[in-house]
C-alpha cells in the first residue's frame, strides 16, 4: 500500500487508509516521548482528529510504501526514522485490539492472517 504522509493529514486519514488495506489491523499514533519505554504509553496516545504536524518535529512529506511481506517492526521503524512518527500496530484478537509488541517479527500479512482466522 502507498500511504501519503504530510503535516496536513489527520491521524484518522492515515488510520483509515491503513485499515482499508489491512483489515483486522490498525495503527495508533503517540506523542514524542523522552524515552522509548514511554513512547507507546496510553497517556501519549493522540486523538484521531489530530493533525500529523502537531505530533512531530520532522516535517517530511512523502509516500511510504508498505508491503504485505514487511515485518511489523520494519513498518514501525520506517514511520519513526523517515517521518518522525511513533506508532503502534494493533491486531484484532477475539474482538479486542492487542498491540503487536511481542510479535513484531511477523509480517503484516501474517498478523492479518492470525486475526482473520479468529474472526472466521
Amino acid at each position, binding site marked *: 500500500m*502507498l500511504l501519503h504522509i504530510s503535516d496536513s493529514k489527520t491521524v484518522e486519514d492515515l488510520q483509515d487508509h491503513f485499515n482499508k488495506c489491512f*483489515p483486522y489491523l490498525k495503527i495508533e499514533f503517540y506523542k514524542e516521548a523522552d524515552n522509548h519505554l514511554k513512547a507507546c504509553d496510553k497517556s501519549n496516545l493522540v486523538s484521531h482528529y489530530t493533525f500529523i504536524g502537531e505530533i512531530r518535529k520532522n516535517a517530511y512529506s*512523502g*509516500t511510504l*510504501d*508498505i*508491503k*504485505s511481506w514487511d515485518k511489523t517492526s520494519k513498518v514501525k521503524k520506517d514511520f519513526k526514522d523517515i517521518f518522525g512518527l511513533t506508532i503502534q500496530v494493533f491486531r484484532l484478537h477475539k474482538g479486542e485490539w492487542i498491540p503487536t509488541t511481542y510479535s513484531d517479527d511477523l509480517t503484516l*500479512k501474517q498478523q492479518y492472517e492470525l486475526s482473520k482466522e479468529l474472526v472466521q
Partner: protein
Amino acid sequence: MIILLQSNRTVEQMKEDFSNAFPYLKISFFTKKQESEGALTEEVDPSAQLIEVSSVLKDGDTVVNSTDTIKEAEQKFEKQYGLPVHIFRKQNGVWMDTTITDDLTLQEQNTWGREASKPLKTKIDGHFNWNNFSLGK
C-alpha cells in the same frame, strides 16, 4: 506475457504493455528517494526512459506470467531491476490496492476486477411500465 525491458523504452510503454495484457490491472513505477529499503518512494514520470530510473537495468525481456502472484511480479521488478512497482486492480472505475490480496495471481486479480466492474443485472418483468414512472413535481 513478456515485457521488454530496454534502456531506451519509457515507463509509459511498459505500463501500456502491462495494461494490454491485464486490462483491469495497472502497474505504477516508483523511485527510492532515500536509502530506506524501498520505503520512501515517489511515482516515476511516465515519459522517463528506463535507463533514467533504474540503476541496474540490463536490456532484455522480463517474463511476467499470468500465473505469477502480485507479490511475485512486484518482487521480480524490484529485485531484478531495482524498480519498485505497485500493482492496482480496477473495480467499478476505482483503482484498488492489492496489498492484502497479493497472493492472488495476476490473472485472478484481472478477472476479479472485470467481474466486479460488470453492471448489476436487474431483471425487469415484462416491459417497463411508463405509467408508474414519475419525475416528481
